[in-house]
């Protein structure tokens, strides 16, 4: 009787220890505290049909396998877009070499009337040679922004024809499989925080 009790006790203790180990192992992957907002499960995976800076039609499949940072803007943007692109390109430049090539910055201009593919090209190249500049028909841009619960709008033009464009100030980060993972707010995150999040994402998905 005593033997049976001891065996049963050992059996249960081993079971509990094994379960705890499994739980800890399972949790260890999620120990990292993201600096950006974790949007896993809140948004659909990356999908678009846009035009690149060569005027060619492109889709999300062409960059699959990479970590992609999607930002919306327009080339006449006075403040948000330049600071965002500058911060993102610096973060990518300062990443360890092994993962740097796997992280892509994508700038989508939501002002197709003024921003031709050529204009988007010269704009993004001012910040970095590795930024993917995109634009498209208003219909496709609306479809993409709607998919990520964002929008854009145009203010009335002034006498010179200049107008303001409202757009998302956030950067949507997708993992190698195209799943939406993080929502970065560049004005609230330091360069180190951004680099840390990108490294962690690259490490996990890699």
């Amino acid at each position: 009787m005593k033997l049976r009790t001891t065996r049963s006790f050992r059996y249960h203790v081993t079971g509990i220890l094994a379960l705890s180990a499994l739980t800890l192992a399972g949790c260890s992957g999620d120990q990292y505290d993201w600096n950006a907002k974790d949007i896993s499960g809140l948004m659909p995976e990356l999908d678009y049909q846009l035009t690149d800076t060569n005027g060619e039609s492109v889709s999300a499949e062409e960059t699959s396998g990479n970590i992609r940072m999607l930002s919306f803007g327009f080339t006449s943007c006075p403040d948000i877009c330049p600071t965002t692109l500058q911060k993102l390109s610096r973060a990518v430049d300062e990443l360890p070499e092994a993962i740097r090539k796997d992280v892509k910055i994508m700038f989508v201009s939501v002002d197709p009337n003024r921003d031709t593919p050529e204009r988007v090209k010269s704009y993004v190249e001012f910040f970095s040679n590795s930024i993917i500049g995109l634009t498209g028909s208003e219909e496709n841009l609306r479809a993409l922004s709607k998919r990520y619960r964002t929008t854009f709008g145009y203010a009335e033009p002034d006498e010179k024809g200049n107008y303001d464009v409202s757009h998302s100030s956030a950067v949507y980060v997708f993992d190698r499989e195209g799943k939406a993972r993080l929502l970065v707010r560049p004005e609230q995150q330091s360069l180190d925080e951004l680099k840390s999040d990108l490294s962690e994402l690259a490490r996990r998905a890699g």
Partner: protein
Amino acid sequence: MSVAEYLLPYDYSPLTIFVYILVLGLYSFGLFRMPATERPGGGRIVLFTLGVLLCYGVMQTQFDYYSQYMFFVHRGQHLILHHLGPILIALSNPLPVMQFLYRQIPKVVRPFLAPVGWLYRILQQPVVASFLFFGLIYFWLWPSIHFDAMLSRDLYWVMNWSMLIDGLLFWWLIFDPRSPFTADALGYGKRMICLAAVAVPQMILGAIIVFSRGMVYDVYEVCGRAWPMPPDTDQLIGGVLTWIPPAMMSIFGILIILRRTLREDTEHASHPMQKEVTQ
């Protein structure tokens, strides 16, 4: 954009459209089939339809687009889903139609509906109903929850539907056409207390939003606004919409209940139950 395009859904939801068609279909079926003596008058039918169409309009037209990308329009949307639409529906008194429809359900099926009745009775307990009414506003306006709700399509639908269902439950409790003198309905005094009790937290929340110096609901900044508008102006108007109209609707509700109380007091002055009820 043409007028027809404005009337088309921004975010097409087959389930939402199905529910609205079902509600209007069942209401029409009841109207045509029920005895003429029980049938509601034209004014009440118009009121009911207007309430339903208002709620549909803010959920399945381009209005929904502006609600997703402007905070103050979002507050307007919830003002209709949680207040105005349900108020019109409750005031139209669709009870005879619902009773007629209930009688059409085969007797063998009715016992299976009992759990719905139990849940309904719990939710219509005045303290629970009042807490749920303003609690839900606080819940969805809690900055981090609001942020997620505006980012996730699923959460967004849960938010809007929960506001509409709760609005219907609360305003039905308040404007229940059955008199507490003759039926098992909530007393008029308690109804007025509920209305006052839900008005105060809404006014506080509205005032907090109006007087907030910083950006509380920055999801609209993150997601981009429907048109360029200073964020603090958007938040200020949204705060005012959370503060003033709901308070006015509570006062309006109290006035209606007061009128009914005075009228029924006179009618039941010689009622044998009167003495018992007022004690």
